[in-house]
């Protein structure tokens, strides 16, 4: 499933960079597209704002098929305080923009599976695919508004995985 998780993240990251190059994060000394995998970074005291954070949850494997199908639940969290130039009064708009960006980068609902264990990554034989996302209600904490979207990411296990 790791190849699928990597491929899913890289697909969303590439799509986000093309859709909104302005959404970036400075992380470990480098500027990157504003999306990261929580389990692949140092623990956060507080989640960063204005970026998408992928958090992986449950895993299920269907062994009855001719190729086992693995399904992992992914939660994509994001939050914003709005912009300083508007004194945070645009935090609702900022969150709506992130909603729209997330909906856009999740389409189409599939991407090629690659192995990122070596550079350059190696194309594999199958595709990673996912369901439509379910958005949670907005959570308000003082001047911070946040939301998450959950979806199931599926892949077929290939030989050697």
């Amino acid at each position: 499933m790791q190849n699928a998780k990597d491929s899913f993240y890289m697909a969303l990251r590439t799509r986000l960079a093309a859709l909104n190059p302005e959404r970036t994060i400075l992380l470990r000394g480098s500027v990157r597209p504003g999306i990261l995998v929580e389990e692949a970074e140092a623990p956060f005291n507080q989640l960063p704002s204005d970026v998408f954070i992928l958090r992986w949850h449950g895993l299920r494997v269907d062994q009855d098929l001719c190729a086992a199908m693995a399904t992992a639940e992914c939660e994509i969290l994001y939050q914003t305080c709005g912009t300083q130039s508007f004194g945070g009064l645009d935090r609702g708009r900022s969150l709506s923009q992130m909603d729209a960006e997330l909906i856009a980068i999740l389409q189409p609902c599939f991407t090629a599976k690659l192995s990122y264990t070596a550079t350059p990554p190696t194309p594999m034989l199958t595709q990673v695919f996912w369901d439509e996302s379910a958005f949670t209600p907005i959570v308000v904490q003082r001047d911070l508004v946040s939301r998450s979207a959950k979806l199931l990411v599926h892949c077929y296990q290939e030989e050697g995985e």
Partner: protein
Amino acid sequence: MAATWFSAPAPVTRRVRAYFAPVNRVAAIPTLFDPTQQGSFPLDNPPAPWIDLGWIQDFSRKAASKSSSVLSGIPAAPLEQVRETLQAQVSLQFLSWTKLTMALATGAQHMNLLAAAGGVTAKADGAQAVAAVSVQPGSTATSIFLASADAADFTAGSIIALDADYAGQTGFVGSPISGAYVRQAITDADYIRRITFNVALVSQVTPTGLTLAQPLPAGAPVAGSKLQVVTGFVDREGGSFYQEWSALFVMLGSQGERIYFHYPRLQTTASAEESAIPLSSKNPDGQARVLLKAQFLALPVTDPLDGERVLCYRSFLPAANALV
């Protein structure tokens, strides 16, 4: 170069996309889909003359063909099988209301409501229309040239119907898509524009003509074509005309495989019917989306390959590198 492969489980897909293309009713020639040449077309851009009708819902196909056994011996045992009847039905729900989806979801002819002239007698399917204007030479499927005085009568955002004057002919009318069958001559010169599928939305009006937001299904206008403003569409419960179209349904699998269901000839069988789907399952009495329900009967074609009569072709294009 050696290839690697994988064992592909059953295709995983979530929805079905529908494409329809006209049948030449006069010559009884359907539009055929060739998966070897057209199988990898972009779903948003089907090959001509297929018209994309978008994703559909509740797609169901039911084979009603019957076979029976020829029995022989004592006690009788099956010797062989024979196909007694050949029949198949298709049903679905369209997720949009357009000229074509409405027409396909009604069991009769489908008409355009031409903008009415002032002070005329009321009619249920559209009163006497404002006089049609002539299309000038050089027009294309998306750009209609008009005399400047005529262009001033149109506005951006209006819908137009473009076709020839009715001249007393009988039989199938509307070209290249037949929209009706005239049993005996009628007197309405606008009749063909009332039933034509050659409609489009005007995106811009210039002093020399109209720019259309979508290409006319019939392509560039032929000499003698005229156009009129359409205010909406109407169909009737009753009548003797059945829509007949070629149909193509596509399922796109998660691994890039494709399943095609190609019905060369589908005729509508059920009268106009809608289904209301509440936008919120928690509020079934709230706002609801109204979907067009369509039911079709498949008619046979003779496959020139071997002379067999068939109703449907199911094609499967496997995913790359999948074992078959």
